[in-house]
């Protein structure tokens, strides 16, 4: 469809130039044939059509091989003089039209489209469609790309697409400049392809997200659509439409906040495992006492709910960033009036203050003002965009919730680490003591920054292990958790969770757990132990060593040994 469009544009634009060339050539050739000339011997002759066509061809293109076959008479020269003007101008006009055509924006975009559609058609691996290229999806694309996932991005701005192309992703991220809420575009991006695993729409505008999600569901009912929604009502609405994966950053933050208040050990464990930007160096806890929340928006409300649920005292300061800016004509908090506001809320004896407005600068200045009055206060900020992260870091805010990052992390986990996502859900159900116990184990075995990875017992991911199990072998977890340099030592890894073929979950399987084909494991390990483990389950020799303690001998060595004995 699109390649014919390209041909179309060319034909349409080249019609007039073609006719101009045909006509000018015809006139000049005919003239040359009719006008009599004189040959070497002085006999009159007429130029043949072949000679005339040859002459006009090189004359029009200004190559100019000279007067052939014989020197021209003055009558012929006069005609040629006229011919040069019409044929050369006609020729240049045609060339000019062709050059203009190559630079034509419409043609270029059609060519891009054709190239893009070809690439999508030939894409055989599973891929994810991400709509819109902004701070949130940028992070997400980076993470997914690191996992080797194939991604298709659509954005309506050419600038954004160019920015993405400059990022040099490997494997290539396919980008297209197009309108995201048109069915044609979505089809072009491969939404109906079987290997399209998910579509992600994380725009700030809920209405736009819902519209796109609906469109995607209609085009491909089986598609896993991941949609951002900012309110509870919106999430429920989406659920009614049959969309399971809606991402509400505020609920995510509130859940995490409640966890931090109610079971700090689980919270610490979560941060240990999922490596948030400000991961803990040691045990950290939110202070007990009175909380002041500035900003009664969606964020403020959900945080208040979390505080109430955790039976923590809280005071609200009703502050709306847009109103504040209008009234004070500045995006800064902290004049005498604002001081009074904080003092009235009881900042002197408050344990913590949360700045939850939708303006980062106001949030920052609220916290700085609060610190001036009460230097011991614990500061929590809502950070709306990733761009401001360095400012917040240097302001020494105790804890910042970056909305964009919360979303991108969550979506990344859903797409790329389904097991980790499930584990997190299980984690929220556990007791605080369980969290303390596990954090201790993790810290002693893998240290503070464990890597989280998933492995499935199938040939493509664990060749040697699967091979062994399929040939009737049986292995328990203790046997494969070995250090390859010394079998008697246990590798520095912890099996967090296993999901078997029947989708049953076992949390923290012990060393006696018997490994079955197509089990999925979630493992926390040091970088070294991760490489070690991946080698062990894939390499036949290493696997043999791990379970028997002997080196696997190949046939050549076996023959050699037999001869010796």
């Amino acid at each position, binding site marked *: 469809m699109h390649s014919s469009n390209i041909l179309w544009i060319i034909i349409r634009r080249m019609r007039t130039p073609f006719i101009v060339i045909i006509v000018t050539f015809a006139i000049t*050739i*005919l003239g040359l044939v009719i006008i009599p000339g004189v040959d070497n011997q002085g006999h009159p002759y007429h130029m043949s059509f072949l000679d005339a066509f040859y002459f006009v061809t090189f004359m029009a293109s200004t190559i100019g091989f000279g007067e052939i076959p014989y020197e021209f008479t003055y009558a012929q020269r006069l005609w040629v003089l006229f011919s040069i003007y019409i044929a050369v101008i006609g020729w240049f006009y045609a060339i000019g039209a062709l050059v203009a055509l190559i630079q034509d924006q419409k043609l270029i975009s059609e060519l891009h489209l054709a190239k893009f559609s070809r690439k999508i058609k030939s894409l055989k691996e599973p891929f994810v469609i991400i709509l819109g290229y902004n701070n949130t999806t940028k992070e997400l694309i980076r993470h997914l790309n690191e996992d080797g996932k194939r991604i298709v991005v659509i954005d309506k701005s050419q600038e954004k697409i160019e920015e993405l192309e400059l990022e040099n992703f490997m494997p290539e991220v396919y980008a297209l400049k197009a309108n995201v809420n048109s069915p044609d575009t979505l089809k072009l991006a491969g939404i109906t392809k079987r290997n399209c695993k998910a579509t992600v729409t994380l725009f700030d505008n809920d209405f736009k997200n819902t519209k796109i999600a609906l469109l995607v569901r209609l085009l491909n009912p089986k598609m896993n659509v991941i949609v951002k929604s900012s309110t509870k009502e919106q999430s429920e609405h989406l659920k009614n439409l049959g969309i399971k994966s809606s991402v509400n950053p505020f609920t995510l933050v509130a859940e995490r906040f409640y966890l931090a208040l109610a079971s700090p050990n689980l919270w610490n464990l979560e941060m240990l495992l999922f490596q948030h930007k400000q991961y803990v160096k040691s045990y950290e806890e939110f202070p007990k006492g009175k909380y002041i929340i500035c900003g009664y928006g969606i964020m403020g409300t959900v945080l208040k709910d979390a505080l109430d649920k955790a039976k923590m005292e809280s005071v609200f300061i009703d502050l709306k960033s847009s109103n504040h800016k209008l009234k004070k004509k500045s995006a800064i908090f902290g004049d005498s009036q604002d001081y009074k506001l904080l003092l009235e809320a009881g900042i002197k004896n408050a344990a913590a203050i949360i700045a939850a407005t939708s303006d980062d600068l106001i949030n920052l200045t609220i916290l700085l003002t609060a610190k001036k009055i009460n230097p011991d206060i614990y500061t929590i900020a809502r950070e709306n965009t990733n761009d401001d992260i360095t400012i917040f870091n240097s302001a020494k805010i105790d804890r910042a919730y970056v909305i964009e990052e919360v979303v991108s992390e969550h979506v990344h986990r859903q797409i790329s680490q389904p097991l980790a996502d499930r584990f997190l859900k299980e984690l929220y159900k556990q007791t605080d003591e369980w969290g303390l116990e596990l954090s201790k184990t993790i810290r002693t075995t893998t240290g503070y920054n464990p890597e989280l990875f998933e492995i499935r017992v199938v040939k493509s991911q664990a060749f040697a292990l699967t091979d062994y199990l399929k040939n009737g072998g049986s292995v328990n977890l203790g046997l494969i958790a070995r250090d390859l340099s010394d079998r008697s030592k246990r590798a520095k890894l912890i099996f967090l969770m296993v999901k078997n073929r029947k989708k049953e979950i076992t949390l923290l399987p012990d060393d006696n757990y018997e490994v079955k084909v197509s089990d999925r494991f979630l493992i926390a390990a040091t970088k070294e132990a991760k490489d070690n483990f991946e080698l062990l389950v894939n390499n036949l020799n290493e696997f043999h060593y791990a379970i028997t303690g002997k080196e696997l001998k190949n046939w050549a060595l076996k023959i050699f040994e037999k001869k010796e004995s």
Partner: protein
Amino acid sequence: MNTQKVISGFFIILAMTLNFGFFYGDIDNFAHHSPYELFATIVVNFIATVLKLGDKTQLGSVLLATSLVADIQLIAASIVWGISLYVANNGITDSAQIIVSLSGGALMANIVSVILFMGDTLKSKR
């Protein structure tokens, strides 16, 4: 009156008439077949072809195909002419039959083209 129809109709029919003019006469008597007429036929056929470009309809595509057939036959005829005159050096009379019959083929294509064009015109309500 549709100017575009006048122009394209003019060239399509002129292509056929010129083609007929060249084709008509004894097949092996070259006095009956003017080289100028062949030249004019080729030029007008080319123009007709270009005018037919850019019509996305089914009929437009078939019209374009008939023109392309005529073009190919006429170009073949002129190439045979040129080769027999300058490369093979055996005189034009030996190839006269080939040239004229090739142009006869082109004439058929041109007639089909004109019939299609007329059909389209008659069908049109405007």
